[in-house]
């Protein structure tokens, strides 16, 4: 009863989503958005009409002006700097605009251009000092803050009363300052346009990527050939130009050159940027975050003013928020991976029937023997991690290696070897198609093809994204094994969509069913997921009838059959359940049956732990990774089974020297070739009653041709 509740709870409660959501980049934007909504809700409750269209339009006008400055600041912070001089630049460019308009009587378009260019120049001074001369951003902009402010004060003394006395009467100027389209303020419209461009720029264009890269790691960016100095300098210039745009609209709205213009603006802007989630450490930020931060700060300051809160308190609240946001930013960045690692692993309930052990004397079908005693070894110490082995019709032996190569051994003695092809990722399952193309599943990369003339081509590395998955599961994380149907369609397994290849034991600890089987059709070059929710699907073999595939679920300890053609099309049937170990690759045998490799054996401890998800979660949270419960892969075997799922014969290496764990085997001309992902050798075993002419290619392709 208790187990039923446990099973239902773990089946229907999506524990795994928390970790997946937290590991999304957008959660860092989502949190400020939630804060924004809370702030907006709180003030609209406290102040009637706070969110009325009129009030929103007023806020939008002001928000867009400051928003431009925040965009500039965000850009500079993302590139790894800071710009404290924005307040002074704001004042100077505001002065520039009004000076051009009221004293020089220039037309408005000229005023706009001059002001923005002037802002860019002011920013370029920072950019030159910080980008090219490599001065510290904080000190440099602090100094320009003072210099620009002094310049403003001096200019003010001569011109403030002239400007104050002028009342420019210009339709364009008035539109900028107070006009709008359908109630949306002019400045907000321009801001929206700039923001959309900024988003595209930062996420889709090369310079935007360069900026993020420099902020993430200046040295790496430099080593990758990014023009670091120039890019940084340009960011500061852009910050100046964006500040100028904000100041231009400010000038049009208020026509003021008061002494307080831009004073303390840098704190407001910095608060907005950090609050929006633009990390002070650089390299992380987006336009959306800049916007959200701006809105939060403005809603809070305007809301507090409207609530008749005194100015000092208002500043204090703002400073407090900056402090909290900066703290969260730093703590989050520092602990992000650790927090995610803690909550990401979410074990679920997994019940296995009673274990029928392979121990000698128990009379089980899996009883241990020592038939693998007489293997001869190929490539001992010269090959590493041959997960799968395969032979072509010319008796050449192929195996993957951990270094990202496909190694070819030459007959008859398989002493001579060469790198057949270099792919880069770890090769796992392999299969030849009718045209002698070698298809290989590459962990972390996808499905690749090596043509007979040794060209490496990508077949596919993505499939359709599932609708309800939080993790983007369109990319292939761990393509594992494959086989090719008669019509050329390739069925391959992806062991897990939640973990990387080296984390496969963690997936076993979770026992959730994170794997899937995917079909790639070379004719149409399309990839579709055909089965989901499998517990580490591993070996795949097209059955002899050509209408179904047999596949192994490693953590499910079973072999299933999936019909992709024929009357039972689309159905999945259990073929062998409750195996005593963890099944891996499946291949054809010469007597019309199938070979199966067992990578490891079940143990009562893990079986029990699988029924106790809470225990496993505690373990994952409290115990370091290397002390976790680990599936036993110290011993395994090869076995043969028939179409009905009966076990016919088992092969063990009792000494455990040559082939304790076996991930794959291939029969070829009376021999069985053995591979193991943790091994440094390939085994070759002479089979007693095997067809000495059996070649997989002939069996597979001549028959149906």
């Amino acid at each position: 009863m208790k187990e039923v509740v446990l099973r239902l709870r773990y089946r229907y409660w999506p524990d795994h989503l928390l970790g997946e959501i937290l590991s999304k980049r957008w959660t860092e934007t989502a949190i400020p958005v939630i804060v924004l909504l809370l702030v907006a809700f709180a003030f609209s409750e406290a102040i009637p009409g706070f969110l009325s269209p009129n009030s929103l339009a007023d806020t939008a006008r002001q928000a867009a002006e400051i928003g431009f400055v925040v965009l500039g600041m965000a850009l500079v912070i993302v590139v790894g700097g800071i710009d404290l001089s924005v307040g002074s630049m704001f004042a100077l460019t505001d002065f520039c605009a009004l000076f051009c308009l009221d004293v020089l009587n220039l037309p408005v378009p000229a005023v706009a251009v001059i002001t923005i260019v002037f802002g860019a120049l002011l920013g370029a001074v920072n950019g030159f000092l910080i980008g090219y001369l490599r001065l510290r951003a904080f000190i440099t902009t602090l100094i320009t803050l003072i210099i620009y402010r002094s310049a403003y004060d001096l200019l003010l003394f001569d011109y403030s009363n002239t400007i104050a006395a002028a009342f420019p009467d210009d339709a364009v100027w008035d539109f900028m300052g107070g006009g709008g389209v359908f109630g949306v303020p002019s400045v907000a419209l321009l801001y929206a346009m700039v923001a959309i461009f900024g988003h595209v720029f930062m996420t889709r264009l090369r310079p935007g990527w360069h900026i993020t890269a420099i902020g993430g790691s200046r040295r790496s960016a430099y080593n990758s050939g990014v023009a670091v100095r120039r890019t940084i300098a340009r960011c500061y210039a852009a910050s100046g130009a964006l500040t100028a745009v904000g100041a231009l609209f400010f000038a049009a709205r208020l026509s003021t050159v008061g002494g307080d213009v831009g004073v303390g603006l840098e704190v407001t802007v910095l608060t907005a940027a950090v609050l929006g989630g633009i990390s002070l450490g650089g390299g992380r930020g987006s336009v959306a975050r800049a916007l959200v931060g701006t809105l939060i700060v403005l809603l809070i300051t305007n809301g507090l003013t409207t609530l008749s809160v005194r100015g000092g308190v208002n500043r204090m609240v703002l400073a407090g928020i900056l402090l909290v946001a900066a703290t969260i930013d730093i703590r989050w960045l520092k602990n992000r991976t650790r927090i995610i690692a803690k909550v990401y692993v979410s074990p679920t309930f997994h019940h296995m029937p009673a274990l029928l052990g392979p121990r000698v004397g128990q009379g089980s079908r899996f009883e241990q023997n020592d038939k693998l005693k007489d293997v001869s070894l190929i490539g001992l110490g010269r090959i590493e991690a041959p997960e799968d082995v395969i032979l072509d019709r010319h008796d050449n032996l192929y195996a993957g290696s951990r270094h990202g190569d496909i190694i070819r051994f030459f007959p008859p003695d398989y002493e001579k070897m060469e790198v057949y092809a270099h792919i880069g990722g770890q090769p796992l399952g392999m299969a030849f198609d009718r045209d002698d193309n070698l298809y290989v599943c590459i962990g972390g990369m996808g499905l690749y093809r090596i043509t007979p003339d040794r060209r490496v081509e990508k077949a596919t590395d993505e499939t359709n994204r599932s609708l309800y998955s939080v993790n983007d599961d369109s990319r292939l994380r761990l393509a594992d094994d494959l086989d090719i149907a008669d019509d050329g369609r390739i069925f391959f397994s992806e062991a897990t969509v939640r973990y990387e290849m080296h984390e496969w034991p963690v997936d076993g600890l979770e026992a959730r069913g994170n794997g899937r089987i995917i079909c790639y059709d070379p004719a149409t070059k399309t990839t579709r997921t055909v089965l989901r929710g499998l517990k580490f699907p591993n070996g795949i073999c097209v059955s002899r009838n050509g209408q179904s595939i047999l596949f192994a679920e490693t953590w499910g300890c079973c072999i299933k059959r999936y019909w992709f053609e024929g009357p039972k099309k689309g159905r999945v049937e259990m073929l062998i359940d409750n195996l005593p170990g963890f099944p891996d690759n499946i291949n054809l045998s010469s007597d019309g049956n199938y070979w199966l490799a067992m990578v490891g054996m079940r143990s009562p401890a893990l079986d029990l732990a699988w029924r106790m998800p809470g225990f496993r979660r505690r373990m994952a949270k409290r115990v370091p990774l290397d002390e976790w419960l680990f599936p036993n892969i110290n011993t395994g075997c090869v076995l043969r089974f028939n179409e009905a799922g009966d076990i016919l014969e088992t092969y063990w290496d009792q000494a455990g020297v040559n082939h304790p764990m076996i991930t794959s085997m291939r029969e070829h001309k009376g021999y069985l070739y053995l591979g193991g992902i943790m091994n440094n050798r390939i085994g070759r075993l002479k089979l007693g009653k095997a067809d000495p002419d059996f070649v997989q290619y002939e069996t597979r392709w001549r028959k149906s041709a």
Partner: protein
Amino acid sequence: MTHSITTRWVGRLVALSALVCALAAPAFAQKGLDEPFQGPFKKALAGKTVGYVPVAMNFDLTEGWFAVLKRELEPYGMKVVVRDANWSTNAGAQAITTLISEKPAVIVVHNPDVQTYAKLIQRAEKEGIFIIQINMGSAFRSTAFVGANWIEIGERDTQAVVDFCKGKSNKIAVVQGALSAAASAYTLKGVENVLAKNPDVKVVSSQAADWDAAKAKAITQTVLKQNPDLCGIVGFWDGMDIGTAAAVKEAGLTGKVFVATSGGGEQKGACDLVKSGAFDLDLSYDVPTQGADMAALVKWLVSSDMKPGTVKGSVYTTLIPVTKANAGIDGTCWKLERLKQ
């Protein structure tokens, strides 16, 4: 307080009338006359809001005005709400914008400069909100202005300095406020008016301290170092000129340099400082009077049938020169704590 007084008076009245009735009941059958105007007045005021946007709170002028407005208007059921711009023109503009959409009956605006709020004030009056500008006016003339005549202040302060300087070095300094603020720009005009008549007087420094005492002190320190024979300083606001006076005192020139300034006439800000010799002349535009003027205007405007923008008028404050002669007399200055009670 008011309540208890009222009840006490009501009590006495009832007792008195009872006594009167008992003594001469048949003889006094005559009834009181209902005053027909107080009812509509009360109705017009009740529930209305007055918005108050000072350049900043937390100093004598703005706190004083606020206290008087509350004291005068709240008993009639009016609400006085403050929107603190806290020395930020932008925040002030935003506050007025927000206030306009809230449609109070009156907004009292304290302009940081002559221009920024001009358009907003125009818009507010168009939307039916009376704007009373206090002390620092904008270039746009609204229904009412209450405040000092800055040109007069500039002239009288400068005249006092010039008179003191007669026979001395004739070197004077001017410490301005925020350049484009009414209180600074117009006062400067007054200074210029007097200087035009006294060509022998030389202005050695005229700088803006942005209403900031620390800045004023720094400026004055420099000026005194360069001109130890300075004979007078025209400051534009006593709140800022505390710094000016401190610099003079530090230089050991108290009494030798005539410091003339102006302000709200608060006890600590004006009289005490004149008594101590920090200021030689402080022209006071008595804040309680200004507050009462504003309150009277609010009552009058709200109870009238007038539309905003139909009349425009000014209430210039009569200045009280605070000097050694009257600084010690009780009543020359006012006390903020007492106003707030």
